[in-house]
């Protein structure tokens, strides 16, 4: 099968209007906002060294914050603001998706615009500005008729840089709930779908180049006083925006939005739920690749309607509980806690996706390690790897405390590569996920947790407050409850990591339904 006959290209293409449309909307809005703030600011401070230095310094600092972190920071900030606004003015707004993405990206676009506008205006020959004064121009006339037109090439270079940065960085707005071309990249990375990753990167690059060239056309038009060229560029940008507005207008407001976090199992389960909802006559859409910290708030705020979370994650991260209770008790208490926020715990799917310490079966047998207690004696000579968050999670603290674990080295790793690293002996122990299909594939073994240091992680379906009484929706999802055991989920996850046409979340979800639905 050649690269281009892969059915995943077609699947990627089907998402393009939605992803590209959202990407253009969020980028163009952010850029417009960035320009609306930066240009007047740059003009206001250009003759004042102190505020000018402060402003450029601030913009530079913003630039050093990694794009993903900047986007993620805006979410809790807006959440707090939305709560304030609701209590003060009685008007709330969604802190999810579009707004934080636009604000963070606008902030990101400011440095090149500010710097180039200040530099461009500063580079205008003082003899020319003096002549403008001498022929009787007011400072405003001098600015608009002489200084800005002469600074335009330098300013446009900054605006074009900002446009390319914003379009590139907008791919990172997926985890805070803004659909973008980043959806391809995040989904592709998590499900080993390199076609998606490639498609997302290419689409973002093409978009960035197209916008850059349209801006260049406008610039050339203004510089050569060619109305035609400036108009052509302007129409190009307007057309781009208009074209992307069409799908959003067509979207039905009654559609059920299914959320998914950033890993393969979540993509499969959200596809499964969306399929069941459509089969029951709902129109369903998905918001995928949402950050773990964002998704619950998005549900509580009604930005998404349904998603799958894990009991232990909510227990420890959302409700900051450090005590660990038996599976049933924890679920019951969690259900009551969620109900207080009007979030419905519809039920368990039947499997757990818990953290577990995992090592190759052969080595475990050689050393006689069956449980974490056995491991503790060997730990000092062993290396361990885990995903980016594990070592800062309460589970790790709990494990260390319960078993006195201390490894020779600890490393952080992209979860997809962890299992292979353990299998190849590059690391001795990994903190894997119990439902991961790779455990079976690489012949790894899960070490027993006799002291129950790791809380239970039952996969549970959560419903947004506004869907709590939606009986049709409950009925559509009910057939999934209690039906998916750990072996089935592992196999589904392994299929999703297959890296071929049959491994798309939709295809795996259909396979899963065939297996559990009948």
């Amino acid at each position, binding site marked *: 099968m050649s690269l281009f006959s892969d059915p995943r290209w077609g699947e990627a293409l089907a998402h393009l209007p939605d992803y590209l449309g959202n990407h253009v909307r969020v980028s163009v809005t952010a850029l417009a906002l960035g320009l609306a703030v930066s240009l007047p600011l740059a003009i206001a401070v250009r003759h004042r060294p102190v505020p000018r230095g402060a402003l450029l310094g601030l913009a530079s600092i913003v630039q050093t914050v990694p794009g993903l972190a900047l986007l993620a920071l805006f979410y809790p900030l807006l959440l707090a603001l939305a709560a304030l606004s609701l209590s003060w003015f009685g008007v709330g707004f969604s802190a999810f998706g579009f707004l934080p993405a636009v604000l963070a990206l606008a902030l990101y676009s400011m440095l090149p615009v500010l710097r180039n506008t200040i530099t461009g205006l500063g580079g205008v020959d003082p003899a020319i500005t003096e002549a403008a004064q001498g022929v009787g*121009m007011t400072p405003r006339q001098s600015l608009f008729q*002489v200084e800005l037109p002469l600074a335009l090439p330098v300013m446009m270079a900054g605006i074009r840089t900002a446009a390319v940065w914003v379009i590139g960085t907008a791919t990172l707005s997926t985890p805070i709930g803004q659909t973008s071309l980043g959806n391809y990249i995040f989904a592709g990375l998590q499900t080993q779908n390199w076609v998606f990753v490639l498609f997302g990167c290419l689409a973002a690059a093409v978009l960035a180049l197209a916008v850059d060239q349209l801006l260049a056309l406008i610039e050339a038009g203004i510089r050569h006083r060619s109305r035609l060229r400036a108009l052509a560029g302007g129409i190009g940008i307007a057309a781009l925006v208009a074209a992307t507005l069409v799908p959003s207008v067509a979207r039905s407001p009654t559609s059920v939005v299914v959320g998914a976090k950033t890993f393969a199992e979540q993509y499969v389960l959200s596809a499964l739920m969306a399929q069941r909802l459509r089969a029951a006559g709902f129109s369903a859409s998905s918001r995928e690749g949402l950050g773990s910290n964002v998704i619950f708030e998005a549900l509580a705020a009604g930005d998404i309607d349904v998603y799958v979370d894990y009991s232990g994650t909510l227990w420890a991260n959302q409700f900051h509980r450090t005590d660990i209770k038996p599976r049933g008790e924890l679920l019951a208490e969690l259900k009551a806690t969620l109900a207080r926020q009007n979030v419905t715990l519809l039920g368990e799917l039947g499997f757990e996706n818990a953290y577990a310490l995992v090592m190759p079966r052969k080595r475990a047998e050689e050393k006689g390690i069956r449980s974490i207690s056995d491991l503790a004696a060997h730990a000092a000579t062993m290396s361990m790897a885990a995903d980016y968050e594990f070592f800062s999670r309460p589970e790790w603290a709990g494990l260390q405390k319960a078993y006195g674990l201390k490894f020779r080295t600890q490393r952080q790793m992209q979860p997809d590569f962890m299992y292979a690293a353990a299998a190849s002996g590059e690391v001795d122990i990994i903190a894997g996920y119990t439902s991961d299909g790779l455990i079976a594939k690489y012949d790894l073994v899960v070490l027993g947790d006799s002291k129950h240091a790791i809380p239970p992680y039952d996969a549970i379906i959560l419903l947004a407050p506004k869907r709590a009484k939606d009986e049709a929706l409950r009925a559509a999802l009910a057939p999934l409850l209690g039906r998916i055991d750990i072996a089935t989920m592992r196999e589904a996850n392994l299929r999703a990591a297959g890296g071929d046409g049959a491994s798309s979340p939709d295809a795996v979800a259909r396979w899963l339904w065939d297996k559990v639905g009948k």
Partner: protein
Amino acid sequence: MQTPLIAFAHVGKSFAGGRGAQPVRAVDDVSLAVAEGEFLAIVGGSGSGKTTLLRLANRLIEADHGTITVEGEDVRSVDPIQLRRRIGYVFQSGGLFPHFSVAGNIGVTPKLIGTPPHDIAARVDELLDLVRLDRTLYRDRFPHELSGGQRQRVGVARALAAKPRIVLMDEPFGALDPLTRDALGDDYRDLHRKLKLTTVMITHDMTEAILLADRIAVMRGGKLLAQGTPAQLSRSGDAYVGELLRTPRRQAERLNELLPRDDSA
């Protein structure tokens, strides 16, 4: 004597020196009157304060002390923007706007005061004729497509566009080659007479001042050393004025020796 069109009375202006340095007195207690229709040249070396004095007249710079009146009004009581629009100003190397065409540059002040576009176009052509540039050839050119002399002609046309009574010129012909300079100087002198202008011209070149101006003011170190017609100046006892006049005299004598007239041959 009638009321002068421009009058400086005990005018002073200081600029802050560098960090910690003493302020520099650019113009120090200068009193000077320019009569209507007069062509006055202000001569001095660099740092003599001549350019500062010129700019005080249309409030490109504000005076610290003294009073400046233009057309009988104290300039402090006049809106500086309106003042500049009714005084023509020719800049050192043209000061043309590089992104405006010749017509755009010439018509800039009429446009600012709201002259209808049709009238501006007619005025631009009239001015191109006045400064002896072919209207169809030069109207739509841009400054970078012009020679230095042509640029300065456009600069003069721009200064005259709003029909000012007063024209201030800041070393207008300094950067031109001698032939162009001579031609432009003569052409301007004719315009000055024909349009009944009152002109104040800054120059460091005494020869040019003698050839073009009715009266000459000599400045040095911010002070006005002497003023008068060339003949009056030559009777001045001031050593610096004498030194300034020596150069054109020597040049004239030398030229007489080297270029014998036809009748002496």
